[in-house]
Structures are given as C-alpha cells and as structure tokens.
C-alpha cells in the first residue's frame, strides 16, 4: 500500500517536472524559431476564430441565467437596481475567465492534443526531428504565444456578450430599466477587476494549451494504450487535467489578488 502511494507520488512529481521542462523548452524555442509570426497567426486563427461561436453562445446564456437568477434574489431585498453590479462582477472576476477557458479547452485544447498525438503516432514529429526542425518551436511555441493573446480576447468577448445577456433577461424580460442596469455595471467595474480578469485568462491560456500540447506530444509514452487508443487516452487526460487546473489556478490567483 505504502509502496503504491510512494510510486504514484513519485510519478506525479516526475510528470510535473517533465511538464515544467516541456513548457520552459517551448518558450526558449521562441528565440531561434523561424517564421514564427505566421504560425502564431495561424494558431491564433485556430484558437480564436474557430472557437468564437461557442464563446458567444455560452457567454450569452451565462449572462441570461445570471440576470434571471440575480434579479429574483435581489428582488427579495428590493435591490434589483444592483443587478448590473452582480452580473458584471460575477462575469469579470470569475465566470468569464473560467468558463471561456473551459470552452477553449473543450474545443482548441482537445483538438491540439489529438493533432499532436496523431502526428506523434504517424512519425510526423520524428520526421521533423530528422530534418533538424525544432519540434517545440514549430508545433508548440506558436500555440502558446497565440493563447496568451487569444484567451484574454475571448474572455473579453465572453464578458461583453454575458453583460448583454444579463441586460436582456433583466430589462427586456423582467422589466428592469436598462439605464439602471447599465449604470450599475459602469459603477461596479474597476480597473483592478479588469486586470484580474486578463491575468486569469492569460494564465489559463498558458496552462491549458501547454498541458494539452504536453499530453499530445507525449502520446507515445501512454502506458495504458497504444496507437489510436493512446491518442484518445492522452486527449481525454489533457482535457480533464486542463479543466481541473483552470479551477485550481482560479482559486490560487483569486486568493492572491482579492
């Protein structure tokens, strides 16, 4: 029993170290990377434009639900006028960065892990190595750099659409004066809140994309399966661990910034 726990703990520590080295290597590779700009733009397109519909839809429904729930709760205390404050602070501080990151993990992160896993399985990554191409610089670095820009932008869009969703359910459906809603939004949002939102989004982007890339890149090391199953297992692990790390990192950042 003790031996199993020890072995398991050692493997976690080993994997954490390996992941840290992988991420560090990916950033270091940016220094000597050729034609990096083009690949960053392409990665930005894949992460940004392709994920945009889901970000907008989930953002809208999150705002609608927040508006609805918030209105009925505030109504008990006769404070419906604070609906804008509730919706905006919830979205900017917590729900925006977290939900946008989870959506991006589900779409861009899983696609990245699967793509790299297949490239590993079909020897495309080995082919790059034999050509003398830096596999980190070519495959991982552009995605990481793009994530640092795309995640905050997607989060900003998520929050904006969410605020409109809150306004729709609060004003249009439940009869709250739009001016009251938007003025309370304006009063509630402060620069530190926006900064916290962007810090979280960029951190989640860095952590989740590097984690998904790490699992895809090392799909061949999967001990429980080989071939297509190894790709499937590594993709699942990437999505699950990324989702957990978003929530864990959210708690840690919040505890430092609040």
């Amino acid at each position, binding site marked *: 029993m003790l031996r199993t726990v020890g072995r398991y703990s050692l493997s976690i520590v080993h994997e954490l170290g390996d992941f840290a080295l992988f991420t560090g290597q990916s950033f270091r590779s940016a220094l000597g990377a050729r034609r990096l700009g083009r690949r960053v733009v392409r990665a930005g397109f894949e992460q940004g434009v392709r994920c945009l519909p889901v970000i907008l839809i989930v953002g809208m429904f999150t705002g609608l639900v927040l508006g609805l729930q918030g209105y009925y709760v505030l109504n008990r205390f006769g404070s419906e006028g604070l609906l804008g404050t509730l919706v905006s602070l919830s979205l900017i501080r917590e729900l925006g960065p977290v939900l946008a990151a989870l959506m991006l993990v589900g779409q861009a992160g899983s696609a990245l892990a699967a793509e790299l896993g297949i*490239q590993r399985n079909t020897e*495309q990554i080995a*082919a790059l*190595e*034999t050509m*003398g*191409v830096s596999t980190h610089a070519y495959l991982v670095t552009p995605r990481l750099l793009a994530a640092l820009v795309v995640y905050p932008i997607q989060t900003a869009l998520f929050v904006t659409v969410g605020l409109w969703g809150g306004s729709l359910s609060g004003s249009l459906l439940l009869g709250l004066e739009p001016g009251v809603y938007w003025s309370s939004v304006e009063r509630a949002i402060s620069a530190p809140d926006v900064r916290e939102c962007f810090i979280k989004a960029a951190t989640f982007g860095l952590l989740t994309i590097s984690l998904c890339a790490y699992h895809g890149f090392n799909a061949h090391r999967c001990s429980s399966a080989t071939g297509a199953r190894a790709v499937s297992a590594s993709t699942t692990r990437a999505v699950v661990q990324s989702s957990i790390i978003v929530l864990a990192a959210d708690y840690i950042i919040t505890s430092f910034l609040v």
Partner: protein
Amino acid sequence: MGAEINQPLLLRIEGLFKRFDENVVLDGASLSVPRGSLVSVLGRSGAGKSVLLKCMAAVVQPDAGSIYFDGKPLTVGDASARADFRRRCSFLFQSNALFDSLTALENVALPLEQTTDLPDKEIRGRSLEALRQLELDAHQDRYPSQLSGGMQKRLALARAIVTRPELVLFDEPTAGLDPLRRNAVFAMIAKYQRQFGFTALVVTHDLTEALIASDRVALLDKGRMCFEGTPAEFSASTATVVGDFRDSADALGRTLAAMRRGEALQSKDS
C-alpha cells in the same frame, strides 16, 4: 565478409549496441557506406534494421558504439556535429511521415522554411523544382491523402532531396507493396540516387530488388552485420547465414512452384 572498399567513406558505424528492456536489438553492428553509393542493409523482419537507421538519424539513442559521418564522430553531446549531420542527411520513413494537414508543395517547402533563411521566393522555386523532378508538379496543391501510394513515396523523396542532402536514409521503402510497385520504388531510388548523386542507405528485406539496384549490400542478423560486400559477392557467398537468407527468399518461389505443380496434377486427375 566482402572485399575492401576503395572509395572514401561517408558514413561508418562501429559496434552499435541497442537494447529495449531485455531485448537486445543491435549487438555490435558495424557498417561502412562509401560516398556516392547505394548500400542496402538486408535482414529479416525484427532483425534491427529500422533501429539501426533510427540510431543514425538520432531518433533513437544507441546504448554504445560509434557513428562517423564524413570522418567526424556523432556523439550525443556534440550538438554542432549532430546539426551538421541533420543538415546534410535526409530520412525517408517507412510510413512516409508526410504532414497530412499540408499540401504537397507545403510538405516539400517545410524543411527549407524551418531550417534555412532562404527568401520565400527561392523556397517556392526550389520546392516546385523538386516536385517537377519527381513528376508531381501537377499535384502541388493536393494533400497527401489525395495522392496514390506511389505518389506519396515520391512526395516523401521530394521532401528529402529538396535540402540537397549528401546522404538519404530509406527505412523499408518497399514494405507492404506488391512486387510491381516494389520494383518501381527501387528503380526510382536507384534512378534519383544516380541523378542527384546522393549516397543512399536502404534497409529492406527485398533481396532481389536490393541485389539488382545496390552497389553494396550488408546482411543484419541477430543485431550483428554478418556480411558486407557487393551484390555479386553476396550471391557467391558460402556463409551459412547468407545462404539461409537467400534460401528463405527463394522459399516462396519453391512453394509457389509446388502449388502450381499440385494444381496441374489436380487438373489432370479431373
């Protein structure tokens, strides 16, 4: 072993050793590859041929032994020697390892884009030239999945030669192909090897094609190189291992002949 080599060597391998857990794959394999020649390494499936090639390309790290390229040793710690080797060498994978999300032209341009500082116009020109030389210029915008098996093989070769390498390593280029295509692929390798003047090292288990197309052949058995020499020396060799390998290659012909005789008897009976 065959006669001494008189040409200068481009590649020399000495006592290569590699094991995976308890399984010893290479057990002191040595090989000499003269510059400008086509050398085939023969061996049964699982003899360690692909691992030997991957050790040379540094995809797999050998446990012991030395590899010399153009007289200089390739050691794990010597990054500049490795980089120089990679610049002057290309590797053709058994599976072709083409990038399925890139077009034929993008596949060929990739090594130039990522390893040189050439301007875009020159990269495009050289990539198109490589595609034209391999008669693929009409398919430059197609993806690998839209090409036939033979075209994919040629595309992989175009990607390998676009950097103008001195050495091309071929890993089982005819694996899984029918006899006609096997002939065609070996003929293609021999043709372009002479046309472009690179040194070719091919690992294969196709005896007939290797003996016809190669300048030299080597036989890998149980992780050791049991024979090195010209195809004529291989055919004349009385060594047991060489004889066994030749016999195993002939066995299919004998089996087929026996089957045909059986069919003939059956048709007489009826």
